[in-house]
């Protein structure tokens, strides 16, 4: 007699049970191989999804900052761990508590996951950073004028042998999957509190990895928004 699977068998109950076990084992092995093959793409997909999520979140913050500037004629100060998600201070000022802090999500009205300090979190649950230039003695957080030339720059590497943008007003970035636990000079450059930042392609090479997600505010885009909104009158 032949089974529907095409295997021949006898009617002996014991032999029949043994055969089914082998059959099941084969199925389980195939299933295991298939699932094993899927696990890697799934984890890659999950990580890729987090990276896309970080980009979207940073785009939202970028747009919210431009909207804030169009409404108020200035940018907000960065939030600090103690400012409860608000710009520190939460008013027009030439003296921010710090020029390198976190996204003032409450001041900008951005919804998203926050930590106990009300700081907006990236998909890896680290607070998203925001730095604003202090050029013109804090003019960008007080009253923006056309004559200002911002002094942040964005480079392709920490040594800045390749420049992406020479005059940048502010940057928003996620420290990526590894947060601040990195030895990569290009990633350390973004959190060292100076006026140079790095944006380059994603890399997992140990020691030179780069998984930060960074976006900057160009003075040209900001000027357009301000004049269109009548904020430079």
């Amino acid at each position, binding site marked *: 007699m032949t089974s*529907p699977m095409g295997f021949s068998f006898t009617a002996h109950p014991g032999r029949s049970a043994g055969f*089914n076990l082998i059959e099941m084992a084969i199925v389980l092995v195939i299933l295991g191989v298939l699932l094993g093959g899927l696990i890697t793409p799934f984890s890659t997909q999950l990580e890729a999804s987090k990276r896309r999520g970080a980009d979207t979140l940073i785009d939202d913050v970028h747009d919210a900052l431009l909207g804030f500037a169009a409404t108020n004629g200035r940018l907000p100060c960065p939030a600090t761990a103690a400012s409860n998600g608000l710009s520190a201070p939460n008013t027009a000022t030439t003296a921010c508590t710090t020029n390198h802090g976190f996204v003032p999500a409450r001041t900008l009205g951005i919804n998203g996951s926050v930590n106990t300090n009300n700081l907006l979190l990236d998909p890896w649950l680290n607070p998203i950073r925001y730095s604003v230039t202090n050029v013109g003695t804090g003019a960008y957080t007080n009253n923006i004028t056309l004559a200002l030339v911002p002094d942040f720059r964005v480079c392709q590497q920490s040594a800045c042998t390749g420049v992406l943008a020479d*005059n940048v007003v502010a940057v928003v970035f996620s420290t990526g999957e590894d947060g601040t636990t990195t030895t990569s000079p290009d990633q350390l450059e973004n959190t060292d509190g100076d006026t140079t930042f790095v944006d380059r392609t994603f890399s997992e090479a140990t020691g030179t990895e780069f998984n930060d997600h960074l976006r900057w505010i160009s003075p*040209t885009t*900001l*000027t357009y928004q301000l*004049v269109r909104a009548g904020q430079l009158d």
Partner: protein
Amino acid sequence: MKPVPLDAKPPHFSSGAAILIFITLILLAATSLLVVELSVNQRLQLRTNDKASSLGEAQQALLGYALAQAIPGTLPCPDSTGDGLANPNGANCQSQLGLLPTRTLNLPELDDGSGAKLWYAVDLNYVGNATALKNSSVTTTLRLDARTVSAVVIAPGPAVDNQSRQLLVRTDFLEGLNADADLAEYESTSSASQNDRIVGIDVGRYWALMERRVLIDATQLLNAYRAACNEYPWAANFGGPYTSVNSQQNGAPPLNTALPDNWGAACAGGTAPTPATYLVNHWIDQLYYGMCTAAQGNCLTVLGSSVSPVAGILLAPGIALASQTRPDSDPGDYFEAENDSLPTTQFRQRTLNNHTSSYNDITNGF
């Protein structure tokens, strides 16, 4: 063959479970394929969105760049070498069509979603060292679908036909009129063999925005003059010379010589300011000015504005409408509606969204 016992469990029940698992696997595989296919479509859609958002960002940055220049209305030359920097060449550009100069604009390296950099063409009267005056009466020759534009930004899209994508070779990225030798004529036509996406900066919108900056600067100048000298300067004759005429309250702003005190003079309240060089060189014959004396207070009415009455007003003309010929000493060749019947104490303001083919003045009451 042995006979099958009557109480033996039919073996096909167990084999059926295996078949069910195989069917499940096949269904899983089919579902995965479907999801992957949907993801591909989603990615294609995202690429289209990327293109649109890159083009919009480029357009805004170009307008912002032009607004912030020492001579407002100046656009950068295209990048002809691929380093992100504009490449001027004397009073001209190395090429009228090239890559968008992202580094000059302080933008990220924008691409069109398929990995190709954005292209950019500019009207040569608008670039840095061009001899043409930078004002709304300048001649514009750049065309997009027969519409005059100050610049165009093009997203090339994926390669079509035999494009080999050699950097800076326009025919390897662009198609149709966008790729031909006429660098002043562009089109937005779309087909299977022509997939450029293009935006143009409409010349009317461009100058309307620049004129807002010009009026801000001119207003600050006049207010600073009054703060120092107690009165606004008397107006000059529209059409020139641009020197104050005693007791004249309507006409052109007196950018050459001001009365009762000249620019830069020591007044009772401080030193009178001096006009920005670009105002004198590029806008002296383009603006209209009305003023009240301190004794008259706010003597000017601005219809359509929430800021009215006012003590002073400046008008910028927008680009020449079909019925207007410039240069001319007749304000009617520059201004429209109530603003056309000058001199007057009544003016008309309309927001940019309410500009029409018969009204495009920019006004600023103060």
